């Protein structure tokens, strides 16, 4: 079966109903295990003390804040090219999850930065691009709400998503591009695999990252179903009003 068959809302909802119980269970299990293990079962870092425990929240949230935007980008491109409504609704459904992940990353970063850097905030390339990404999330959500016609809203938000992708990329690679600022480079470079995190911190961090990822996917499935329900209800009401 082609992946495009899931552009049919009925097929998408059937798939969603099958995978969601597993996704929610695995997400809850991994998030709880990763955070509990990280908080209770890992030692303090020699230089950072107990603040190292913030890594189990900060890194997974930052990772998902950026990846959520990339998922929205792919869904937006599918909408612009193939006009599949489910993909536009999936992008819309992902945005509030992405914005919460961004806020968690910004807040935990500030709380972590204060004792380590001596400041809550610095206009560092990575922090600044992350803040701009947060503003793009707000703009994206506001644009969906502001435009009444859903197809026009999907078009405009898709273009906004393309533009915002620059800042999603900068959020991830700003350290490499400018090689300055307070924020350290990534501890988990996916491309090279040369992580700088010791095993004792890495395993709970990995579980937490997997948990945040699964939680994002579970919520996007559920929220896309919500958007499909609202769209269908509006269409039925419009048809009834047209007959009356």
């Amino acid at each position: 079966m082609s992946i495009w068959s899931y552009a049919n809302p009925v097929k998408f909802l059937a798939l969603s109903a099958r995978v969601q119980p597993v996704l929610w269970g695995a997400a809850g299990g991994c998030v709880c295990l990763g955070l509990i293990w990280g908080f209770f079962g890992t030692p303090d870092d020699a230089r950072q003390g107990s603040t190292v425990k913030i890594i189990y929240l900060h890194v997974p949230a930052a990772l998902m804040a950026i990846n959520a935007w990339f998922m929205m980008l792919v869904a937006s491109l599918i909408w612009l090219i193939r006009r599949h409504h489910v993909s536009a609704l999936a992008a819309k459904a992902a945005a509030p999850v992405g914005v919460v992940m961004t806020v968690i990353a910004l807040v935990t970063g500030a709380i972590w930065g204060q004792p380590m850097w001596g400041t809550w905030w610095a206009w560092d390339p990575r922090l600044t691009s992350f803040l701009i990404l947060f503003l793009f999330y707000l703009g994206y959500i506001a644009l969906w709400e502001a435009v009444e016609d859903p197809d026009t809203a999907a078009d405009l938000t898709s273009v906004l998503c393309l533009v915002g992708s620059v800042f999603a990329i900068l959020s991830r690679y700003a350290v490499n591009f400018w090689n300055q600022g307070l924020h350290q480079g990534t501890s988990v470079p996916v491309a090279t695999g040369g992580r700088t995190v010791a095993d004792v911190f890495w395993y709970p961090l990995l579980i937490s990252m997997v948990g945040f990822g699964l939680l994002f996917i579970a919520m996007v499935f559920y929220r896309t179903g919500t958007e499909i329900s609202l769209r269908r209800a509006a269409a039925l009401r419009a048809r009834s009003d047209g007959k009356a």
Partner: protein
Amino acid sequence: MLPELGKYAAEVISAYGVSIAMLLALVVLTLRRGRRARATLRLAEQEAKRDG
């Protein structure tokens, strides 16, 4: 029982508190909005059936 967090206890606990509260709020609001949307759809389908 909390682990020994030393002089950074306030920072660590507040980071966990804020993050977990936000995640829980997101899940609860997501589920509540979903239930309302599905109820709205059921009602619209019933009305559509009734109106023929």
